[in-house]
């Protein structure tokens, strides 16, 4: 679908200036909201954590950042978040890529079923998913019941361990991963693959030499998007994860709401921004580039 982006030149017989003003007025409120509630808070958070009111006026200080990186508990939370995010990104690619490849090349009647199933989690809110996973893989959950029924011992439950959120987050993010990878695969022309097959390339060689180089960008965009989503995810880690250490999302909420400590909460937020900076920039850059190439 190229039309998402084609900001084609607008026609019209009205004088250009009047039309331009009208356009600006129509977009004014949403653009103002972006400025006031996204751009400004981010700069405010950065500045207000670096310039802190001290005994003799506002001073430059990195104390809250020094505290974060010297506090073992904060560091453990950050480490857990980085671990969870990278494991989830790898697992999502390992699960999503085969499904996307299958959807791209299959012509059988299972393809529609597989697509519907893979997209279905998009319509399951994470709060319902958390509850469902507790009942399924939690202690004495369905998995335990079924293992017991066939005479096998219980498995150690991932509930309240770091693997709990991993399972939930992979489940929750599978639809977008599959959709974005399938969209990337759709851009690879069938003739190029047929040609490689005709000269005797097996499926693995076709994947490695033809498909992978052409979808590198969409894989990176998919990873960026999932990393941004998972790094500061809240509901699933809060419900399924361990209480200590905790992921950055629950950590920030607790610091802000329970400890009434906006300064340290903002510091944690800025640190999250910094760790995700590369992925955010890449995401915006690649969409902006798509927009430009499509609008010609």
């Amino acid at each position, binding site marked *: *679908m190229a039309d*998402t982006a084609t*900001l084609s*030149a607008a026609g019209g017989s009205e004088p250009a200036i009047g*039309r331009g003003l009208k*356009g*600006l007025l*129509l*977009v004014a*409120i*949403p653009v103002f*909201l972006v400025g006031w*509630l996204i*751009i400004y*808070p*981010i700069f405010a958070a950065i500045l*207000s954590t670096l310039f802190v009111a001290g005994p003799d006026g506002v001073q430059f200080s990195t104390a809250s950042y020094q505290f974060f990186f010297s506090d073992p508990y904060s560091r453990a939370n950050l480490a857990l978040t980085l671990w969870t995010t990278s494991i989830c990104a790898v697992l999502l690619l390992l699960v999503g890529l085969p499904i996307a490849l299958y*959807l*791209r*090349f*299959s012509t059988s009647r*299972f*393809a529609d079923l597989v*697509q519907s*199933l893979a997209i279905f*989690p998009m*319509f*399951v809110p*994470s*709060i*319902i998913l958390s*509850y469902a*996973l507790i009942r*399924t893989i939690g202690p*004495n*959950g369905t998995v*335990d*019941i079924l293992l*017991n029924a066939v005479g096998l011992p219980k498995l150690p439950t991932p509930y309240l361990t770091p693997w709990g959120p991993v399972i939930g987050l992979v489940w929750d993010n599978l639809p977008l991963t599959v*959709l974005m990878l*399938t*969209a990337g695969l*759709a851009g690879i022309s*069938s003739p190029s693959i047929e040609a490689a097959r005709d000269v005797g390339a097996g499926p693995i060689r076709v994947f490695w030499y033809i498909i992978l180089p052409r979808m590198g960008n969409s894989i990176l*965009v998919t990873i960026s998007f999932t990393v*941004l989503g998972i790094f*500061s995810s809240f*509901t699933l880690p809060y419900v399924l994860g361990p209480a200590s250490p905790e992921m950055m999302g629950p950590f*920030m909420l607790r610091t*802000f709401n329970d400890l009434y400590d*906006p300064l340290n*909460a903002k510091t944690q*937020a800025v640190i999250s*921004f910094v*760790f995700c900076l590369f992925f*955010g920039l890449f995401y*915006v850059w690649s*969409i902006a580039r*798509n*927009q430009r190439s499509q609008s010609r």
Partner: protein
Amino acid sequence: MIRSYSSTSGRFDWMGLAFAILLVIVIAVPLLVVFTWAFTEVWRYPSVIPQKFGLRFWDQTLSRADVWEALFISLRLSATVTALSALICLPAAYAFARMKFPGRDLFFLSFLASHAFPKFGLLVAIAAIFLQLNLIATFWGVVLIQLVGTLMLMIWIPVAAFQAVDRRMEEAARDVGAGPLRVFWSITLPQAGPTIFAAVLLTFVSTFYETEGAWLIGAPQIRTMPVLMINFINNQVVVQYGAVLSVILWVPSFIALIFARRVIGTGSFAKGFGA
């Protein structure tokens, strides 16, 4: 989605069957378990099937005042946010799709900012601003923070819808003397309508389930359904309360599932996220 009609025709699709079975197990089973719990009165480990089915816990859950209160707050919030979002975003989407004005491309891309930062970090930064404005624990504070989350969806998808409208039909209508409003009402809206409706519906549903902002800004006064649900899970009250609540909570999503399939099945949705 484009598929090549070459490779797998003829043979039985074992791979498809394997994918389908695996996905059914992983995706359907947890949901089926919740559904079963909602209609169960007694289910003791290690029985595979509940000892006693029944609707007793539906009565109990639905007679709780906190459930109704949370439901009304959630509905009021989602309706307000969706209405406001449609009111400010749809005209803007029309302008982005059809008008030329300085800074258009930059403004259009600026909505990406809401997706370019880790969400919870952004929410905390906003909450710090709201703290100074005394918007914490107020209805309108939650409305504002949820409104920000809907901007990109409510602008990017309708822009695509407006651009997909056949311009020649609009011009033809204008040629036979239809005014701009008439053209918009009779030509543009009917063609762009279904996609815009899907965007509005998705906005309503995603706002209904929004948990982080509602909790961070709304706590403790504004308690929405998802926040109440987290309380139920944390406080380990009767298992069935959570299950019944899950089934009730899933209704809006189910409606969205039916209506939004056509939008999501096409590539435009994934494109909206930058694939």
